[in-house]
């Protein structure tokens, strides 16, 4: 198993504030890795830098042997990275199925005229997209809700639609931004099963999580960041014992 994602000396500055400071870490192929850290530690900023929503101030991001650093945001998915968002971002004017199909758009080629003329190629593409979307929804166990409007779904199901949208393009690396936020213990349990299932399809998962039980329970490696700096990168077992991590989460003992 080789290195899939390589984040090298990533710096993200916003007007003099260093949100991410010289961060280095890697994600192996087929690995589940978590990024944890207190509020405002810069976790989501790291995600935004990897998906190029933000242009890194300095440093490099490599996916396999592709340098993502100079690429524009819309090209990232073509190289096999897709993501979910911390505050679920579904498209309320589209149905569940259409929301998932949007995730497959990078694989479609038909343009304006072939769409208007409804050429055989365009029809085949649309049918294929629909089929893949149903597959992804089935994987998430919500294929019976395909034709509903997303605004009518319960919170947990909305999360699942978002994950299905990220999965449909079969990315090599999937970024989950706080997938368990707002979920009850049962739903969290279900989510852990899903994340394990994603991995068995030989894909890597990088997740940000506040729920430490989920983060430490599921991942092989955990990166801990605080104030934009990496303070640990280790197995969940070691992380639990690390005094720096305990300090970042619970504060220092007054002696």
């Amino acid at each position, binding site marked *: 198993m080789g290195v899939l994602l390589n984040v090298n000396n990533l710096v993200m500055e916003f007007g003099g504030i260093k949100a991410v400071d010289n961060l280095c870490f890697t994600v192996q192929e087929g690995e589940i890795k978590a990024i944890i850290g207190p509020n405002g530690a810069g976790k*989501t900023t790291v995600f935004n830098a990897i998906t190029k929503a933000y242009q890194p101030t300095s440093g490099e991001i490599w996916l396999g042997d592709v340098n993502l650093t100079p690429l524009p945001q*819309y090209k*990232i998915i073509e190289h096999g990275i*897709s993501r979910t968002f911390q505050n679920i971002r579904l498209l*309320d004017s589209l149905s569940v199925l259409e929301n998932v199909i*949007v995730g497959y*758009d990078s694989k479609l080629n038909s343009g*304006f005229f072939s769409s208007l003329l409804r050429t055989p190629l365009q029809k085949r593409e649309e049918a294929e997209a629909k089929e893949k979307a149903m597959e992804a929804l089935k994987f998430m166990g919500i294929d019976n809700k395909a034709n509903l409007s997303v605004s009518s779904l319960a919170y947990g199901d909305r999360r699942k639609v978002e994950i299905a949208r990220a999965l449909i393009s079969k990315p090599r690396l999937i970024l989950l931004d706080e997938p368990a936020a707002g979920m009850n213990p049962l739903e969290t349990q279900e989510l852990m099963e899903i994340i394990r299932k994603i991995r068995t399809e030989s894909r890597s998962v990088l997740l940000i999580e506040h729920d430490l039980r989920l983060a430490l329970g599921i991942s092989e490696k955990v990166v801990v960041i605080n104030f934009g700096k990496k303070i640990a990168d280790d197995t969940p077992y070691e992380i639990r014992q690390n005094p720096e991590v305990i300090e970042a989460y619970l504060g220092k003992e007054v002696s």
Partner: protein
Amino acid sequence: MFDINSYIVQILTIIGINSISALGLHVVTGLTGQFSLAQAAFSGIGAYASALISLKTGLPFPIALIVGIIAASLIAVIVGWPSLRLRGDYLAITTLGFGEVFRVFLLNFEFTNKALGLHGIPRETNLFITYFLLAICIIITWIMTKSRIGRNMITISNDEAVAESFGIKLSKYKLLAFTISGAFAGLSGGLYAHNILYVNPSDFGFMKSVDVLLYIIIGGLGSLPGAILGSALLTGLPELLRGFSQYRMLVYGCVLIFLMIYRPQGIMGKSDSSISKLIRKKLHHIDKTSKGGAV
């Protein structure tokens, strides 16, 4: 002699012409979520271009119309290319500025007869041609909305960050929407010129753009039937109110206010694709940028 029949035919023709322009704005504002106040200017380009062809070359009407469409969509590309990088209010101001520049240009351009405008345009537009072309525009818009193109446009209007994360190139779809809206506006302008038989710069001013925007907002932003219904209602209403003589615009204004209070999403609009959502989204956007927080 006042002929009631030809009066009604004329109103129906104008409704058809306005609907075509409204459909264009529906694509750019209703589907793609970009505020454009240049729709009247694009109509003006179509009107002047096709009128000039008819007057100066005497070529047949379809060719004049096609030239009008091409001219308007070409200018839409030229204007859209740099300005579609802007968002929300900035785009609205840029398109508004373009509209005014166009009007002032016409006022001072010898070739288009300055403020006097062009007259003696042959009468070519009739009810049948107008509604035939409107039907074609509706079909094009409908098929597009149901295809990948429409889906991506709706995605952009819902959430640009999501669109870009999933490989939808914003500039491409925004420019496409802008070009389609320019083409429809150009067609509607060509029909207008050959119906009214006289065009002058003040026909294509800022207020006309606002009118078109009103059609799609009252009809229901994001709804294709709404765009048509809004055009029909707001074009027909001032005519129905002729009985109120000088008070008719007052009544018209009150009707608009009541519609916005009791049906803010427009007549055909779902509560989700409403103007209130657009405003909410804008507030949200301001909120986000001021906090500079997580995307």
